[in-house]
């Protein structure tokens, strides 16, 4: 038998062989850009070269037929090169303005929306969910599809005060990341433990160490070594579930969806911000999650009506204040909004600044 093939540890590939020739030629030499219409960017290089980028939404989880269709469009209507944004939009680059409209027409004909640029609601950042994750409480692709159907108009237009980045996450690890609006699973009941399996499946000291509130301790249950939970201490975060699958945190009824707003990664104007909890207790209602969509649309409508140009959701709420946010959105303010985690005092109002 021949020796096994060993991998070539080539690492991250050099992008230059894959790059559109105008991008390659003007690398590091760009002068400015404009947005001629939603979904289209026009970059001008110091050399005078111009490149038009047409951005289209995709479903991210793509079958080979979809990918080949996107490639056919690139070969026929663009110049054979594409790139993807981190939010799974595809971008086609063309070196002449005359190619823009036929490219847009071809993409739209095949059902790919053009947009996601400037002050729009761009594609939702997207995790794995029931399709592929080992710990999800909900789906990802389905939530994104359902919401993007609802928000399609805001993707293809540039009608928002500033860009809106929405994220989803199927557990509290929050792979979707920070967002202007984040839609995340929030468990509401402690894990249910299958004591027959713990001893064989879980490295118990590691599981004890994972708990952020020290609510897990080793115990003998029915004569077997297992783990038990102090349910009064448990914050239902699910941190114990990945290292110990017999501690089932996911529950069809009690794993709810929560909505957070005001996360911002950019340093423009204000420093980066974390998103803040605004709504919880929404049902995990597959296949279209209408209750979640209703809250997201309500927040977006109020933001669109009330924020100034260039304010991200976080900037806007900092200006108008949280009392006004809850008043305008009609969302209830509860004891759960008040941060009691370590360092949470910085989130309390230690001043006489009160809004009436």
């Amino acid at each position, binding site marked *: 038998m021949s020796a*096994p093939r*060993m*991998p*070539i*540890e*080539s*690492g*991250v*590939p050099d*992008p230059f062989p894959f*790059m559109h020739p105008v*991008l390659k030629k003007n690398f590091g030499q*760009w002068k400015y*850009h*404009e947005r001629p219409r939603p979904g289209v960017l026009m*970059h001008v290089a110091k050399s005078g070269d111009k490149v038009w980028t047409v951005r289209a939404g995709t479903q991210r989880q*793509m*079958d*080979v037929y*979809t990918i080949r269709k996107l490639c056919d469009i690139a070969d026929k209507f663009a110049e054979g*090169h594409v790139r*993807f*944004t*981190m939010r*799974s939009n595809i971008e086609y680059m063309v070196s002449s303005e005359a190619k823009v409209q036929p490219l847009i027409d071809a993409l739209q004909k095949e*059902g*790919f*929306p053009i947009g996601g640029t400037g002050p729009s609601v761009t594609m939702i950042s997207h995790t794995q969910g*029931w399709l*592929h*994750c*080992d*710990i999800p*409480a909900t*789906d990802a692709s*389905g939530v994104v*599809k359902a919401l993007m159907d609802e928000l*399609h108009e805001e993707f293809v237009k540039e009608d928002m005060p500033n860009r809106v980045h929405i994220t989803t996450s199927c557990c*509290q*690890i929050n*792979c*979707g*990341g920070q967002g202007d609006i984040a839609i995340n699973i929030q468990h509401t009941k402690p894990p249910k433990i299958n004591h027959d399996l713990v001893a064989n499946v879980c490295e118990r000291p*590691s599981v004890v160490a994972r708990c952020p509130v020290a609510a897990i301790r080793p115990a003998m249950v029915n004569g077997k070594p297992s783990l038990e939970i102090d349910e009064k201490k448990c914050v239902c975060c699910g*941190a114990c579930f990945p290292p110990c699958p017999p501690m089932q945190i*996911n529950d*069809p009824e009690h*794993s709810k969806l929560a909505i957070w707003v005001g*996360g911002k*990664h*950019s*340093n*423009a*104007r204000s420093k*980066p911000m974390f998103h803040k909890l605004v709504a919880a207790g929404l049902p995990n209602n*597959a296949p279209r999650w209408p209750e979640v969509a209703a809250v997201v649309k309500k927040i977006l409508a109020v933001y669109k009506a009330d924020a100034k*140009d*260039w304010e991200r959701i976080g900037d806007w709420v900092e200006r108008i204040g949280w009392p006004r946010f809850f008043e305008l959105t009609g969302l209830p303010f509860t004891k759960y909004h008040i941060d009691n*985690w370590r*360092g949470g005092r910085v989130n309390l109002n230690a001043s006489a600044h009160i809004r009436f």
Partner: protein
Amino acid sequence: MANKLHDTPLLDQLESGPWPSFVTGLKRLANDEGKTYAPMMKDLLGQLETSYRTRKGYWKGGTVGVIGYGGGIIPRFTELKDENDKALFPEAAEFHTLRIMPPAGMHYDTATLRKFCDIWEKYGSGLIAFHGQSGDIMFQGCSTANVQPAFDEMNEMGFDLGGAGPAVRTGMSCVGAARCEHSCTNEQRAHRELVNSFLDDMHRPALPYKFKFKVSGCANDCMNSIQRADMAVIGTWRDDIQVDQAEVKNYVAAKGRKYVIDNVITRCPTNALSLNDDDTLDVDNKNCVRCMHCINVMTKALSPGNDKGVSILIGGKRTLKIGDLMGTVVVPFMKLETDEDYEKLIELAQNAIDFFAENALEHERTGEMIERIGLVNFLEGLGLDVDPNMVNQPRTNSYIRTDGWDEEAKKWFERKAAAAN
């Protein structure tokens, strides 16, 4: 043995509406009779529909890999089994993912994408995600037996597996210098030099937990590096913003003074901008914090300075275990142009990873370790000098021993004197 298409009344509801439907794609593969992936995708739809009905996930992990590597494959085995331990959807009982690192900046030619499709049609499910939150291309749905040959063919194309588990992870960089006038550094080079210097730590997971690099060309931080990367590299400049006064005048003429005052001048976080009576712009560059807002708005008139470099922030991560952390500044500015500059960047990353490997607890991220030991201990471990750009404000509590004050003050003045020379 042909399996049949399962009824999927819930998933079917995701085929309507204006956004492209992943369900339609899954069904296209499942109905593609004669293709090797069709039976797998029929059963995958069966399992996914079950999840939609019961609102539960049914995958578990395991150990699947390729020869020579300890990570990079995400194993998935079905947990949906009958009382005799037989899989209910046997053709999709193994549904592993290959994480493959894309070219930096996610550029592709169509020939490469078509080749990926051909390989994945032969060995996998026909389903590919561009891209995962990790920054990888995710080839989703592969039997255990086909993982190795699929990887071998992609590896021969020049592509390599990304990170998984307690390892250096796949990095990300923005489009940057390839198509953005805001770019202050060569993002793709920084990204590749960083990740490709630590491939052993990526492919043979042996760190306390994950370690991620992300590179953004300016403070807009399109890669979310401050919030998501253990080590964030962000382009910036230290000389003056470049102002084209003729273009400023054009912009004011087009938009009006009120618009410019309301959307540019008064939005500057440090009040460093002033609109002159002749519609030119004054910039107080000493007080500019390089936030990018005015440059974002007036793309033609304003651009970053010429003396470019990067800021380094360390310790960003999401919730588990101690709560969200943003990265904090450990190097306010360094040049990143010559080979020696890049060597310094790699040395810093090496020191950060070595310190992390030696000092972090199991499953503790770099930011959590810094929270536990204090930033000063981390800086001293890496041999980095303290700098007031590392803090929002000095400490506000008195619980600190200051008996080394004179010595520390002397170091500060010595550094200042050295910098002045």
